[in-house]
């Protein structure tokens, strides 16, 4: 019997979720809602007496102090009318108010971890329930039309991709008629041997395989040699293995770049830097799920950043959830498994204040995507107990239909656990969550462009994560690792078991009995089981002798384990379902059979003229405008929602200064608590430069990531980089040309700074089609950097420390306003993009690092978006002291004579540094040989002043006004 239980907050306590929802509704412009209450609904199925239900409610489901409940069935008939009874709802406000209810429940098959928790809680009470379903119910009172209520449901309360919505329906019991559908085995083969070109493409399209004609022909040829047609699961396996997401065929293929052939762009650029630099501390690069570098005598560090763009566009919360969950599993699946110790997150969205009518059909508003993504990362990272201490958010209208979500994770791994290899005869062990229809076709979906149809066609590609499952897997896994119970491990990510087993068994071959895979619900075909991207699963290669012990380790932590097959030695991938063969492909064909691809690329620099902006006497307003712009403004609203201190290693936090709210450059953590050895993590990205030339965008991104490392007290000696390219449609030659430019920029700049790449990832085809319009994202390269810091007590923050200290600028300021925020606020792009000066860039960073090491630096901040003026202003208001600076003392390139250029140019490799007067001689001695200027000092007041080259005040603002401008934008 099913009992429906409705739990709600007592009237004399605030309804936290209700209040949040109220402000969201006001945000979309509906102002006639007088009252909102939320109700948590549980539907419990089981053989339970009225007394049992009463105990479940009062002891488990409600907080007796703040909440009350009603039951339908079981306890009594709806004992109180929730709308007018105990809850006293709908009595405030206008007299003619109507009351509406909106009930939201996850669709069948969509993960809801609460269900199993409630079953566990009921078991602890000594009772048992067969199943639990949950829903959320919202009561609204106001002078609203039904259309407005539907809009509220659609825009605020529910996402129809994963949830069902019921308006004004009471006493729902969600009886599911499909519960009893069993799967009846039937081997599906597809007729391809006799198919012509058109039919081949149709097969690819119908099956959502996204294989092109050349690839389909290679498949046809392969099966022709055996004289048989492939099964559906064979085609799926090939499509998944050959997808752009898994194979990186653009980067690894042949590119005809304006007549010059590049065979494997990756090997010729980012990977080449690493082999040429040949750093002995690089332990594993571009091989494993994450790159590995040395840390100390006991541990190494691994680092990986992934993108999860397409799912986040459709279901931001679930997309971000699974993005962060997935990259954490990359770390868990590196070597024999690393402990996740730090998350980083970088997002690109449309501007949050975009008018609704500017949003294309089928697209969620940027604000909704932003909030959903932040909540998704927050809930997953916080629940996993991993600090999120570094990140960035970038806004541009072109991300509206195709937002970018980069999730990164750093792991700590014992030195002797970095190598892995499966042995012939090892058993294939699947651990973690159960398998459902989640995310079918995620790998192929993430390799194509989005359309307004995407949410309809690809709903299945969206998943919700279960961080507690992943935490349990992590805890058990690291114990099994330390006991040496398995030989190899990888995560189930895009492509599910197909990808995990296919990769691990590449050298040996594997056989899997698909009916053994534990399922969330009946009815999955063998093919769905194989390609499902259900989250929180890992695949291990276990020697048969360890079967029982490893089972015990996982089960003790309540993690399900299932042996599903073994690694054979016959170099074939064989799949069976209840003894029936459903796939048999040679590993060699799967991994090497992809036909080579040649793509055309071309590059012509776009020319955006540098504008003629009149010089002014006062740049205070310009400064405030830049400080309050989306990309520069304070991200405190986001940062505080992330637990950035769990695990106790925090040394340099993302918010710094006298009131803990200034913008830190890079974060520092100590992964081993009894040691002062630390790691610094930073990121660099500026798509605005890519609109002018992706080569310099890449160079500047590397420079920025490195500047941040040096700013907090790191040095270039032990820095490794990650590259994450998110690009538009690379079958367009000019788009691919930009990618080539960026990759070359990576090679030249990383080689110059002697910082190797250790891992990376690309996400291509990031464009959005709406009607006949295609909007491509700007070329977007994220560079993440990680530095090993010998002694964290040498670290410095960006806030100025005390009056009378001197302020220096290091580096050369040039006529480089192209892509700057100064041009941006005036409506221009410009052409004079910042370059990296390979004459002084590295020397500047090296000498600054040695000055910091000597204790000569009190604070330091790098000049990036907004240039000198923004960097100095941030230091000033974060420290709570005024400043007076003199532009005539700034070292400039010949020909620079305008004040606005010196104030706002974004020339690379520049730093603002605070030095105590008594140390200034030693400081200047230490940095001699690079351009620098002592440009002013810290004042014991609250005025931020900059004097022009002629000695007149061009900026004179209260630091509280500057800070307010910087903070107000994202105070949601």
């Amino acid at each position, binding site marked *: 019997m099913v009992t429906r239980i409705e739990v709600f907050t007592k009237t004399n306590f605030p309804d936290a979720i209700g209040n949040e929802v109220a402000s969201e509704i006001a945000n979309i412009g509906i102002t006639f809602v007088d009252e909102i209450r939320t109700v948590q609904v549980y539907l419990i199925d089981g053989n339970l007496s009225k007394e049992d239900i009463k105990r479940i409610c009062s002891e488990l489901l409600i907080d007796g102090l703040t909440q009350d409940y009603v039951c339908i069935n079981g306890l009594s008939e709806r004992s109180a009318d929730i709308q007018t009874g105990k809850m006293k709802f709908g009595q405030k406000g206008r007299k003619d108010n109507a009351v509406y209810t909106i009930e939201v429940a996850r669709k069948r098959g969509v993960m809801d971890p609460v269900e199993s928790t409630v079953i*566990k809680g009921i078991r602890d009470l000594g009772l048992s329930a067969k199943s639990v379903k949950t829903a959320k119910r919202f009561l609204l009172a106001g002078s609203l039309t039904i259309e407005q209520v539907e809009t509220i449901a659609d825009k605020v309360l529910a996402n129809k991709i994963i949830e069902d919505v019921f308006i004004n329906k009471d006493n729902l019991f969600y009886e599911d008629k499909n519960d009893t559908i069993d799967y009846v085995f039937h081997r599906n083969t597809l007729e391809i041997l006799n198919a012509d070109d058109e039919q081949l493409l149709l097969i690819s399209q119908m099956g959502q395989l996204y294989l092109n004609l050349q690839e389909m022909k290679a498949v046809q040829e392969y099966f022709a040699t055996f004289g048989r047609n492939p099964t559906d699961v064979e085609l799926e396996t090939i499509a998944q293995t050959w997808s752009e997401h898994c194979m990186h065929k653009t980067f690894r293929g042949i590119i005809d770049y304006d007549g010059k052939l590049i065979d494997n762009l990756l090997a010729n650029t980012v990977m080449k830097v690493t082999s040429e630099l040949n750093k002995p501390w690089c332990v594993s690069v571009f091989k494993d799920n994450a790159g590995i570098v040395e840390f100390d005598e006991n541990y190494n560090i691994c680092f990986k950043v992934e993108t999860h763009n397409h799912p986040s566009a459709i279901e931001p919360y679930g997309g971000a959830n699974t993005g962060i969950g997935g990259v954490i599993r990359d770390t868990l699946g590196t070597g024999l498994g690393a402990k996740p110790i730090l998350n980083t997150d970088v997002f690109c969205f449309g501007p949050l204040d975009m008018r609704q009518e500017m949003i294309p059909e089928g697209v969620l508003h940027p604000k909704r995507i932003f909030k959903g993504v932040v909540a998704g990362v927050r809930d997953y990272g916080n*629940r996993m107990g991993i600090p999120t201490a570094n990140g960035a958010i970038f806004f541009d209208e072109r991300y509206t239909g195709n937002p970018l979500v980069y999730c990164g994770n750093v792991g700590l791994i014992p030195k002797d656990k970095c190598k892995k290899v499966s042995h012939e005869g090892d058993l294939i062990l699947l651990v973690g969550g159960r398998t459902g229809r989640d995310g079918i076709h995620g790998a192929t979906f993430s390799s194509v462009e989005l359309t307004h149809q995407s949410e309809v066609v690809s709903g299945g590609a969206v998943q919700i994560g279960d961080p507690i499952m992943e935490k349990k897997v992590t805890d058990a896994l690291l114990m099994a690792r330390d006991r040496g119970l398995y030989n190899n491990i990888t995560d189930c990510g895009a492509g599910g078991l197909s990808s995990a087993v296919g990769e691990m068994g590449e050298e040996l071959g594997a056989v899997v009995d698909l009916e053994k895979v534990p399922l969330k619900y009946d009815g999955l075909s063998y093919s769905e089981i194989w390609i499902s991207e259900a989250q929180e699963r890992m695949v291990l290669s276990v020697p048969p002798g360890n079967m029982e012990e490893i089972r015990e380790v996982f089960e003790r932590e309540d993690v399900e384990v299932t042996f599903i097959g073994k690694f054979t030695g016959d170099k074939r991938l064989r799949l069976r379902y209840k003894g029936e063969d459903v796939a048999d492909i040679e590993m060699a064909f799967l991994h090497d059979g992809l036909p080579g691809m040649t793509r055309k690329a071309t590059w012509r620099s776009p020319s955006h003229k540098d504008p003629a902006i009149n010089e002014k006497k006062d740049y205070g307003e310009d400064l405030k405008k830049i400080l309050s712009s989306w990309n520069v403004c304070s991200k405190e609203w986001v940062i505080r929602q992330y637990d950035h*201190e769990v695990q*106790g290693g925090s040394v340099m936090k993302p918010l710094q200064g006298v009131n803990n709210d200034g913008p830190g450059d890079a974060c520092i953590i100590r992964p081993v608590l009894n040691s002062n050895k630390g790691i610094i993590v930073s990121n660099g990205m500026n798509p605005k430069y890519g609109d002018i030339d992706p080569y310099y965008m890449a160079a500047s991104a590397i420079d920025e990531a490195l500047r941040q490392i040096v700013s907090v007290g790191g040095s270039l000696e032990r820095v490794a980089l990650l590259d994450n390219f998110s690009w538009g449609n690379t079958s367009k030659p000019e788009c691919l040309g930009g990618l080539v430019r960026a990759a070359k920029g990576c090679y030249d700049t990383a080689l110059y700074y002697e910082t190797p790449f250790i891992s990376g990832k690309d996400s291509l085809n990031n464009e959005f089609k709406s009607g006949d319009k295609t909007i491509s994202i700007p070329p977007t390269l994220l560079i993440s950097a990680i530095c090993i810091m010998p002694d964290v007590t040498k670290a410095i923050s960006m806030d100025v420390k005390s009056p009378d200290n001197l302020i220096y600028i290091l580096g050369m300021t040039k006529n480089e306003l192209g892509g700057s925020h100064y041009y941006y606020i005036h409506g221009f792009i410009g052409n004079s993009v910042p370059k990296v000066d390979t004459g002084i860039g590295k020397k500047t960073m090296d000498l600054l690092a040695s000055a910091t090491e000597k204790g000569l630096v009190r604070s330091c901040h790098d000049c990036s978006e907004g240039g000198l003026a923004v960097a100095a202003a941030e230091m000033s208001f974060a420290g709570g002291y005024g400043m007076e600076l003199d532009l005539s003392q700034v070292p400039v390139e010949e020909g620079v004579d305008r004040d606005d250029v010196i104030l706002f140019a974004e020339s690379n490799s520049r730093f603002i540094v605070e030095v105590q007067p008594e140390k200034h001689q030693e400081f200047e001695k230490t940095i001699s040989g690079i351009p620098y200027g002592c440009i002013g000092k810290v004042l014991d007041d609250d005025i931020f002043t900059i004097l022009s080259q002629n000695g007149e005040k061009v900026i004179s603002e209260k630091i509280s006004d500057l800070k307010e401008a910087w903070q107000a934008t994202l105070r949601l």
Partner: protein
Amino acid sequence: MTIKAETLNNKPKAIILRTAGTNCDYETKYALEKAGADVDLVHVNQLVKDKGLLGSYHIFVLPGGFTYGDDIAAGKVLANQLRHHLLDELMQFVDDGKLVIGICNGFQVLIKMGLLPGINGTHSSLNGYRQEFTLTYNDSSKFEDRWVYLKSFSNKSVFVDKDCLLYVPIAHAEGKFVAGKEGELKALGKSGQIIFKYADKDGNIANYPWNPNGSMDNIAGICDSTGRVLGMMPHPERYIEPTQHPRWTREGLKSEGDGLAIFRNAVNYIAGIL
């Protein structure tokens, strides 16, 4: 008083309870070890299976985290599990003169299982299970990570010295301390069980953001009537080393973090009666 439990090297023994979603165990273990304890991490399944195990420890620690995902309500499901499977053992543990501390999620568990506040010396709220206090959603409706000043108001707890001002971080979404009745709140204060209140940097009672969640009476931590059970929302284990302070680059490195004293007081208390 001498308390039962075997020890190695006469060191107090602490047990940190782990379960699905526990996540501050690593740094809490570090803090306790630094304070001089021997520390074991033990999964709740193991403790339920081997109930005698609890008796071999002196300090029982419920660390921070999101046990069982904080599904239903923060700490609720673990509280329910402990009530139904380890209640007698835990009450015996306290009656034996041993110590219990719950931090953040651990505080939520102690309140929701009724081991706190245990007014009138009997842990009476366990019988009949009428919860008088709770921890609910922050006024901001959001998870927040921020540093707060804690003023100690009582010398009732063996973990805490009176009249000290501690600086430690909070990181929670459901930390607002709420009493069902005004009278119960007064009684709690009268019996000296209000240990920590959120304050400003000078130790004065102040509003948001100093009081980060809107707790009634600014309450951040309370103890039971014996003074041997402490629950607090802020994380003392996150300020053990001087480099954890958010402004150490401004204010210089202190010799140790403010949070260490809480663990050291516990360890010294046990060492004193061993």
